[in-house]
Each structure stands twice: as structure tokens, then as C-alpha cells.
């Protein structure tokens, strides 16, 4: 049974038909100065799935996220979102495309001088001409979906970390996006808030027919939540598959990451000259 699901998901992930894929990265490279951050990375995100992008810190997860939202352009390769090549879009076309994607930032990134209600209403006010009565109802339904209808009049500074994350989630879905990108949605949450956010992500994905992309390094949470996951290491895909497949992956880098081992290809020490020689002043 599990295997059948895995196979079908794998087929879904490797499907090349544009209708099934919301996002596709083809052989994408990106570097800052001489340092290559992403090296020929390819991945595809099927419609309706919850896809995880995992990996140790400093392997280019944030860069990948910025590429997906078109904040930076790839040095080579293509980033195709909803059938559009991001590298070929003009600034205004990019802004139009961004209205179709929601993005949840690590700390929520609520506008601090607006109330919870105004924060959620903000994208509607910016992009639509809806009458106030309708805006109020849309905002209340979204706040109800994240369980914070009662907190509508609070200011962001009065919210706990988990609540802020949920308000940001309500704001991210207020325009009914086609897909939603989460940047470290579990970072710094207590277990209760973490469970709440996890259930919300899954529920929103299934009920709203979204496609969710979660960038995170929380292995346990991702194993429960993701349909399919990519493990990034040193700017390239080290492994991909369902969480069950990834847990059994024999590649040393993947094993080290999934099990949280200290020994492995990802070294504890940043590259440095020989310790004794440096102390003796023989090298610098």
C-alpha cells in the first residue's frame, strides 16, 4: 500500500507535463562572487502536494527560496513557476505573478504598525477594489481558519510567536494563492504551536487545493508532513523521495542529516589550516 503511494508520488514528481507541475527548476546555478551556492540544481513540485526542501544550514535553502519567488535571478538554468520563466519576466509581470503565490516568512514578518485585522486585509486593499463589507468578511473567514478571529484587534507586538505565524498564514492565504511557500515555519515554536502550525499547513493544503513548498531543517516534522522531500547538500540535491525513502537513504550526507549525526561529510569544523601549525605560527 505504502509502496503504491510512493510510486505514484514519485511518478507525480517526475511528471513533466506543465499542467501537473506548479514549479520546476532546471539545472539552476547561482553564485555570489566566486562562491557557488547552487550548482546545477533541478527539482519539480507537483500540483496539490506538500513538498519539503530540507538540508543543513548554509546549503543554499534560503537562496533557493529567493530564486523561487524571483527576488534573485539564476546565473544559469531556468526557474519556471506556473508556466512562466521567471528570468524572462519584467518587474511588473513578476509582481503580478507574486499575487498568485503566498509566502510565509520565518518570523511571520507582520507589518508592526498595523493590527492583526489590517495585516490580513492589507493584500486585499492593495490589489483589489472590494467594498469594505466584503473585505471584512474575507478577513474574518481567513482568521477563523487559523483560529484567531478573536485576536483581530490585537497588535503584532501582543502576539506570541505561534500566533504571529498563524496570522501571517492567514495573510498569506487571503488572496487565495495557488501555491504557498513556507520559510522555516517551525523555527522557534513550542510543541503545541508546532503541532498547530503543522496541522494547519496540511489542512489548508488539502481544503484550499494549494500546493505547499516547505523549506525547513526540522526532520521529524517534515517526515510527518511532507508528501515528497528533497534533501539539499552543498548546493545540490543529495537525495529525494518520500520521507520513508529518505530515512533509509544510504548516502552518507543524507544519513548524517536525517539522523543528526556529528560525524559525516558535513564537518563540524569550518575549513582551516592545521591546528598545531597555526598555533606554532608556521602557517596563517
Amino acid at each position: 500500500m505504502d509502496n503504491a503511494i510512493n510510486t505514484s508520488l514519485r511518478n507525480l514528481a517526475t511528471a513533466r507535463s506543465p499542467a501537473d507541475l506548479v514549479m520546476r527548476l532546471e539545472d539552476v546555478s547561482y553564485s555570489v562572487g566566486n562562491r557557488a551556492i547552487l550548482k546545477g540544481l533541478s527539482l519539480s513540485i507537483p500540483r496539490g502536494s506538500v513538498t519539503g526542501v530540507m538540508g543543513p544550514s548554509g546549503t543554499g535553502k534560503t537562496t533557493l527560496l529567493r530564486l523561487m519567488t524571483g527576488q534573485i535571478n539564476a546565473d544559469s538554468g531556468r526557474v519556471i513557476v506556473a508556466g512562466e520563466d521567471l528570468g524572462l519576466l519584467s518587474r511588473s509581470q513578476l509582481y503580478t505573478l507574486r499575487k498568485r503565490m503566498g509566502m510565509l516568512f520565518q518570523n511571520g514578518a507582520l507589518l508592526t504598525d498595523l493590527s492583526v485585522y489590517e495585516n490580513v486585509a492589507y493584500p486585499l486593499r492593495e490589489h483589489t477594489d472590494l467594498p469594505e463589507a466584503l473585505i471584512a468578511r474575507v478577513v474574518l473567514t481567513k482568521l477563523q481558519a487559523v483560529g484567531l478571529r478573536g485576536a483581530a484587534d490585537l497588535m503584532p507586538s501582543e502576539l506570541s510567536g505561534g500566533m504571529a505565524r498563524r496570522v501571517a498564514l492567514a495573510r498569506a492565504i487571503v488572496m487565495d494563492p495557488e501555491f504557498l511557500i513556507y520559510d522555516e515555519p517551525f523555527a522557534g515554536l513550542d510543541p503545541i504551536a508546532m503541532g498547530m502550525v503543522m496541522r494547519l499547513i496540511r489542512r489548508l493544503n488539502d481544503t484550499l487545493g494549494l500546493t505547499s513548498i516547505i523549506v525547513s531543517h526540522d526532520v521529524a516534522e517534515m517526515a510527518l508532513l511532507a508528501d515528497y522531500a528533497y534533501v539539499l547538500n552543498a548546493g545540490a540535491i543529495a537525495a529525494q523521495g518520500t520521507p520513508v525513502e529518505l530515512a533509509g537513504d544510504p548516502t552518507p550526507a543524507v544519513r548524517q542529516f536525517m539522523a543528526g549525526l556529528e560525524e559525516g561529510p558535513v564537518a563540524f569544523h569550518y575549513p582551516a589550516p592545521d591546528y598545531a601549525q597555526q598555533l606554532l605560527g608556521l602557517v596563517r
Partner: protein
Amino acid sequence: MLIEWLSTAEEQTVRLSGAWCAESVGSLEKEVDALVIPSAVHVWLDASQVTNMDLTGAWFVRRFQARLDQCSTSYSWRGTPPPTVEFVQHSLERDIGSDGNGHRDGLRAREQLGRLTLNQVESLREALDFTGRIGAVLRRAAGSWRALRAASITRHVYEAGLLAIPIVALIAFLISVIVAYIGAQELKQFGGEVFVVDLVSVSVLRELGVLLTSIIVAGRSGSSYAAEIGVMQLNEEVDALRAMGVDPVEVLVLPRILGLVLALPLLTVIADAMGIAGGAVLSWLVLGIPFNQFAVRMQEALSPTTFWAGLIKAPIFAILIAAVGTYRGLQVRDSSRELGRLTTQAVVESIFLVLLADAIFAVVYWEIDF
């Protein structure tokens, strides 16, 4: 006995013995410092009797060697010195902290000059990019009332303009009193006290009013623009705006620029009025010129363009202050230290640019005889 001076007819020997380690530090200190050293001889150091020497012991060996040097007594080791002494010696000889190499320093200076140049070129390019984006957004905003964001502009006119009235009025009044007072003292020597009126009215209307206002506003609002937007950067709020498909230049930069373009001329008019009032009050109190005579003399002193020559500059200065403040705010990345640095930079640069622009205005006015 940890250290002994043995002297025979042929040679002098210092014998170290026992445990030279942290435990015996008390007796080591006493004995090393108490040993009497004859000057200008040669002495052999003999560590063969030492049972144990740690870094503390090695440090006392160095201390003893320093005493020998002070007495200009030369020394050499009989056999090999203890390894810990060698280690300390070795470590101190090689400084791992810095280069200490003149040639490399020269290279580094040139490298830094090159980097600095490239950075300057890059920052010039970024500033031009920012200017272009403001222009593009402005063109778009000109087409739609909504993109102008009247509510936001109103807020900035209130914060940068209305709230600044007391401080601008007070400072304009005081500065003009000072100018009038010094002018009165000097002009009295020539019996031309009445020209204080000319001095105050022309200088306040043409230069002081707008310049003072701009500098105060640069300190008040330029810094707050940079800090507000900078904190939004740090909170990822600006990224969130972009992710929502909202252009930060449109919602954060343009309303501030337009707000200040409205507010600064209004503040300048108030500063002009308060400056004239300050001059008038001082002329009456110190020189006994009544207000109506002051007014008559002022009308004679001013040409029809004097007031406008000052006021025209205000919107230009406003654009400079607001653009620099918001630009620096948007540059904040990653750390609160950046926030402080860029806020300071915003104020310093906007005051500099205001003065530079004022100098250019002065030359242009001179050329066209305005």
C-alpha cells in the same frame, strides 16, 4: 633549592633543579628574584637536575633570563634547554596575529584602494538604480490617484511637518536674533544700525530660513525614515511586502518623498516668518526701531523675488532628504549595527547634499542675477 649560583675559577654556572611547576610558584618567585647576579660575566644555564618543568616554570626561566639581560650578563644553555622553555620562546617569536611585513602591507593598501573604488562605482550604480525606480513609480502613480496613497502622504506631512513646527519656529527665531544682535554691534560702529533690517530680512528669506529648516528636518525626519524602513528590513517586513506583490518603493519611499515635498516649503514659510519676527523684536529692544519702521525699511530692502529665491529651494532639499533617508533605510541588512550606521549616514549625507545643492543654487542665482 630550585636555583643556585655555582662559581669556580674557570666558569660560572646556574643550576636549576627540582620541580619548576605551578605548585612551587611561591618559592620559585622568591628564589629567582633573590638570586644575586654579578654583572658582565658569562654564565652557563644547567637544567639537567630539573625533574619537571611546566609553562609556569618556563615563564620563570624567562623572568630569570630577563634579569640576566638587565645586568648585561650573557648566558648559554649547557646541553639542550627544557622543551617548555623552547616552546614559549618559539611561540613568542612568531606573532600569529598580524602580518608585520612591509611588502605585504603595501600590497594590502593597493588592494584596499582597488576595493574602495569598485565599491564606490557599485554604490553609484545602486543610487542611480534607486533614482530610476522612484521615477518609474512616480510615472505610474501619476496615472492613478490610488497609487499616490493620499492617506500615507497625509501621515508623513503631519509627522515631518506639523510636529516639527515648534522646534523649527524656535530655532529660526533664535538664530535670527543672534544674527541681528551681532549685525547691530558691528553696524553701530558705522552709524548704520538701520541696515540690521536689511541683514536680517535678506539673509533669513534667501538662505537661513530654508537652510535651517532643511537641516532640522534632515535630523528629525531623514533619520526616522532610515530607521523606520531599516527596522522593517530587519523584520523581513519589506520582503513580505514584495512577496505580497507590493512594490516597497511605491508604499514606503514615494509617500515619504511627496509628504516631505509638501511639508518642507510650509515649514520654510514658518521659519521665514519667525526669523523676521526675531529680527524685528531685537531691533526694537536693542536698537529702538519700532515695528512699523522695521516693516517700511524691510520693503525697501527686499526685491520681489527674495522670498521666492529661498522658497524654491525647499522642495529640492525635501527630495534630497527623503530620498537619501529611504534609500539608506532600504540598504539595512542583517544586523542592528547596520541600522545605526546607515541612519547616521543618512543624516550626514542629506545635510551634505542640502548644503551642496544650496551652493549650486547660490552660483546659479548669481549667474542669472536672481
